[in-house]
Structures are given as C-alpha cells and as structure tokens.
C-alpha cells in the first residue's frame, strides 16, 4: 500500500544522545515535511524540503537537522537530544501538483 512510513514507532532516549527519525514515502511526492505535535500547540513545522537536494527551516528548527538525498527519504536528526524535544513527530509529503499533504503514523519520542 502506497504511503509514508516512519520509524521507529516510539522511542525512549537518554538526554544527550543522537537520534535519527526515519521517513520514507513511495508516492514520488516532491515536497516533504517534519512536524512536531504538542498538546495545545497543534503541529509545528520543523523542517521541510521542496525537492530532493533542497531543505528549509520551519517554525521550530533549533536542535534538529534534515537531509534530502533522494525523493523518497527525509530523515530527521536530533544531534543531542534534550527533554523539551519529547513530542510526537509526524512526517508528511505532498505532490507538486496538489495542495494537500499526506501524513505518516508518527513517532512518539520521549527524552529522559
């Protein structure tokens, strides 16, 4: 079934550790996004990529980095995790010809 796959589903991480959240889509969508979801704040954009090879900063980029080596993959890296990065992370993608985005199932990350 076509869609977006995120891994891991959940993770408990010690503060200070490095972590990469994986996101893969098989819809050949040009644009991809990373959001974090926090209670009462909705979803906030961390980083985005309009096409392979390009990335941009969203609303809350500090402490996160991304890469877009190819169309399908858009990993999100926390270089040195802190407790405030405890959140649910969603990856999304969008075709260039469409306006709506499609979302993965999310990664629940707890930093202790």
């Amino acid at each position: 079934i076509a869609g977006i796959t995120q891994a891991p589903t959940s993770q408990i991480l010690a503060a200070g550790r490095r972590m990469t959240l994986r996101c893969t889509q098989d819809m050949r969508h040009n644009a991809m996004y990373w959001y974090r979801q926090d209670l009462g704040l909705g979803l906030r954009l961390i980083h985005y990529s309009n096409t392979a090879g390009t990335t941009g900063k969203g609303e809350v980029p500090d402490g996160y980095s991304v890469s877009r080596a190819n169309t399908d993959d858009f990993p999100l890296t926390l270089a040195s995790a802190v407790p405030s990065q405890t959140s649910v992370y969603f990856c999304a993608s969008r075709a260039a010809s469409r306006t709506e985005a499609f979302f993965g199932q999310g990664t629940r990350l707890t930093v202790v």
Partner: protein
Amino acid sequence: AQSVTQLDSQVPVFEEAPVELRCNYSSSVSVYLFWYVQYPNQGLQLLLKYLSGSTLVKGINGFEAEFNKSQTSFHLRKPSVHISDTAEYFCAVISVGAAGNKLTFGGGTRVLVKP
C-alpha cells in the same frame, strides 16, 4: 506570516447532536484552507479542503465547512455526530504563492462524543 486559531480546545457533544468547530485564520494573501482529523494513536487524515469556488465545502464522513472571507473563518460542522467521530480536529492554512506551500496548523480541537 500566516496563523490559525481554533477557538475551542475541547468540545463535548452527545451522539446524534450537531457539532461546530471554529477556525479563524490570518494571512496577508489568499489562502487554501484544510481540516484534518486525527483518530487516537494515528496520523492525520484530510477531511476537506477549500481552494476556490463555492464557499461551502463538503468532506468525508458527513462533515462540511464554510469559508467566510470577510470574517476570515473556516468553521467545520456536522449535523449529527457518531461515537466514531471522537477525535482531534485540526484546521490548517496555506498562503497562496508562499514559498514551500507550508501548512500552518491551529492548536486542535478535541471532540468527545458521548452516548
């Protein structure tokens, strides 16, 4: 810059009663508007969208929303809810022509349908 405000963080409603979820947006240019639904422990699914044309938009599962440009609103309605409509609902906006077509979300409205 664009922003979205969902005026109610939680809405309790009885089964078969109507529900309205309020959404107001701010943008200096034209917008595309969306409502997404998130069922427990799942990702977001598109309910409906407004791009242009008729201001009344019908979506899946009996939901509809009305775009009101003068009031900068995009309220979501359903005339009769079911238990299965218990979920969190997010209003979102894209400013037309903005670089990256980035979706900006409201804070969400949690709907709890009671029997």
